[in-house]
């Protein structure tokens, strides 16, 4: 079924997607604002503090009890990076009314709860409760620091940070540790007031309720939301390709090395780039997977990702320290093969099927649908999974090679063990 997108009120949009096949309904409320180094940490802290309590449910115990009664409904706060925008808010998932053993209606109470989490936080002396603020601030700082616990994520994030230094895209999803450590309770409250008044609110629903009922529930739940001068979306700053490749090395106490490579892409042909990347390292049938990992056993994992908003490709791989040069050369050789069109028919066919399968089965997951439509809304795109699938079918090999020819190595990041550095 197709999604309907509608402006509900000033700066409030609803994406409505009827579905009867799920056991649950999903309701999401997300504010979209520009990702900036100075505000990213405050923006990331906000939903965590709001999730601690509202006027009616002033602490986590009261909120948990409420959710348990709503048959284990989940309300998770989310902080996502979409292009150079940061999206923060809540995603609620709750059993569909048709399965409530007592025949209760769950949509309205859940919508009310989301509205209250956003518009009616519990406060003291005109600001957030200090204990909530302090403990969530500590959690945020810990979460930013804990990135290092997963070396793969850490290496991927380091690569982007170096490659896009000076561009908003280099700012991590949760912001910088130094900015988080400086946050103050009174300033966060002011920031909160500005954010809810001035940022676009994207609502999303998937479930069995009618559009009219969903709109009614949401308009009521968010009737207290202030709306003044709602900001336009910000569009990404283009990445300036480097003339000389930037090379960064780092030593840590690790047993496996991580090699990250960042490429800039000149082409505007999105679908051709997406397919080119899938061929290169975007699936378990890609050049990187089949050759670098399987055939040559150079890496435990090797994959690539296309960043549409910034026109970048990043490669992420795990290698033995002494295989650096071999892996590096082979990754470039595989890119070159895609650029030269050195492909077998089945490879192209498989890349297309991978994408078509992903678009076709997106409708089977409420979480994926929500994330997809939020990404589209936050970056000003209007394609649906169906229209993207049609475009994939139309791409010719020549378009892919032409697009991939614009791919240039920009930044190399290598994380290795401490001994190897000596």
């Amino acid at each position, binding site marked *: 079924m197709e999604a309907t997108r509608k402006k509900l009120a000033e700066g409030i949009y609803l994406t409505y997607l009827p579905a009867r096949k799920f056991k649950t309904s999903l309701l999401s409320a997300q504010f979209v604002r520009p990702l900036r180094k100075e505000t990213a940490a405050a923006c990331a802290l906000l939903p965590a503090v709001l999730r601690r309590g509202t006027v009616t449910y002033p602490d986590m115990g009261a909120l948990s009890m409420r959710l348990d009664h709503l048959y284990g409904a989940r309300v998770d706060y989310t902080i996502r990076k979409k292009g150079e925008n940061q999206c923060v808010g809540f995603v609620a998932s709750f*059993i569909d009314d048709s399965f409530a053993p007592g025949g209760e209606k769950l949509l309205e109470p859940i919508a009310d709860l989301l509205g209250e989490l956003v518009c009616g936080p519990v406060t003291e002396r005109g600001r957030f409760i200090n204990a909530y603020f302090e403990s969530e601030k500590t959690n945020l700082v810990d979460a930013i620091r804990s990135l290092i616990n997963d070396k793969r994520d850490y290496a991927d994030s380091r690569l982007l940070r170096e490659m896009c230094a000076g561009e908003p895209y280099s700012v991590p999803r949760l912001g910088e540790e130094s900015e988080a450590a400086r946050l103050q309770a009174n300033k966060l409250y002011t920031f909160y007031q500005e954010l809810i008044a001035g940022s676009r609110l994207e609502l999303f629903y998937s479930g069995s309720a009618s559009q009219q009922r969903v709109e009614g529930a949401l308009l009521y739940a968010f009737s207290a939301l202030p709306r003044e001068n709602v900001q336009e979306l910000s569009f990404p700053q283009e990445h300036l390709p480097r003339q000389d490749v930037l090379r960064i090395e780092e030593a840590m106490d690790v047993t496996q090395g991580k090699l990250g490579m960042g490429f800039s892409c000149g082409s505007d042909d999105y679908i051709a780039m997406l397919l080119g990347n899938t061929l290169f390292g975007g699936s378990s049938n890609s050049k990187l997977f089949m050759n670098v990992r399987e055939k040559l056993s150079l890496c435990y994992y090797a994959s690539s990702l296309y960043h549409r908003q910034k026109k970048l490709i990043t490669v992420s791989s795990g290698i033995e320290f002494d295989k650096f040069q071999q892996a590096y050369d082979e990754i470039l050789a595989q890119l070159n093969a895609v650029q030269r069109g050195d492909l077998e028919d089945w490879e192209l066919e498989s890349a297309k099927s991978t994408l078509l*399968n992903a678009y076709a089965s997106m409708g*089977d997951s409420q979480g994926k649908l929500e994330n997809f439509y939020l990404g589209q809304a936050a970056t000003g795109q209007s394609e649906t999974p169906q229209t993207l699938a049609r475009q994939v079918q139309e791409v010719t090999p020549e378009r892919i090679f032409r697009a991939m020819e614009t791919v240039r190595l920009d930044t190399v990041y290598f994380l290795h063990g401490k001994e190897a550095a000596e």
Partner: protein
Amino acid sequence: MKQTFYKRIGESVYSHRLPNGLEIRIIPKPGYTKKYAFFATRYGGMDTRFQLNGRWLDTPAGIAHYLEHKMFDTAEGNALQELAKNGAEPNAFTSNAMTGYYFDSAEHFEENLEILLSFVSIPYFTKESVEKEQGIIGQEIFFFYDNAYREIYTRMLRAMYHSSPARTSIAGTVESISHITAETLYDCHKAFYTPSNMMLAVVGDVSPERIVEIARRILPAEGGPVIPRDYGTEPETIAQAETGCTMEVSCPQFLAGFKCRPARDGEDYMRLSLIGDIACDVLLGESSPLYLRLYDRGLINTSFGGSFEMMPGVAYLYAGGDSKDARAVAAEIQKEADRLAREGVSEAFFQQVTRASFGANLRGLNSFENIAVSLTEGYFHGYDPFRFPEVFDSITKDDVTAFLRENILAERMVLSEITPPAM
């Protein structure tokens, strides 16, 4: 073919057993594009000692996982590649007691199912291909060494169990896998990959008759004998109360585990699993008084969570996350368990938690993978997971109190910790 309708959860299941002993379950999902197939053998990381043709065999740790990797090799090349060509995303996992191969695809489902059934039932290893895999799996094992969570989890199990194969890391060690040969792999395949030791689950908008027909056509006509396995004898006591190590992590992480009394196969197995889940939520779930108290005191953060796990002859409840003071958290868990054992679980809180737990189980039915894996597990252990609403009805607060009283005891607790290196 038998069809069962489960009114309270809105699902139905077709069951059929082939003459070769293969159990087939088909779960229709009208309206979904994706179709999912899961083909599993009752054989996992725990099954290293077993009897084949009257002789006891001791196989290297990690062999079931190794075999899983090698099964994708075919005489023609690689099944992964063949499936991916059809837009399927194939994968596999090895757990303690099961190895499962699966894919989902929107198109060419039946063709993909034929490929899946065929590559899992026809082994093809050579000396060279087996040796080459040692590099890949060795890297996978190294990758785990850098993963702090995995490390504390494995250490917790080693501290909890004296001799149970639950102690063995599923992937084995670089040393143990060096002893794996093509011949041992063939032996293990012959013993455990027989239709009578396996189950096929298909979830999606498919024709049940066609699935049965494909399985009948592709798989061997004969089943195999029941393979006796030896898991040793495990005392009720823990092996060691504490274990710890240093790793480059940002903040200390810990797991506190309680060795619990395991259940036999059958509906008791499922009942204990649900009681254990509820007990875990009552004791330390997000709405428990303990969770709220520890969170307020800054002793835990949102990384904190717990779970109740079971495998053959093994059951344990564990919880953990980041904490600056793991010992204090562990002591608080113990204190709360003592209080609940003494005072009993309150009826209102039990109802609240059970209601939430029902919702969580229902939510799980959105996931095809979860449906297939839980039906397979249920079949291997002799229970029907889709009867969860009825089993919930049969559980009382006294069952939960009794569980806590019997299992959450100081002498059954182990603490596994990882700390950052000293500056």
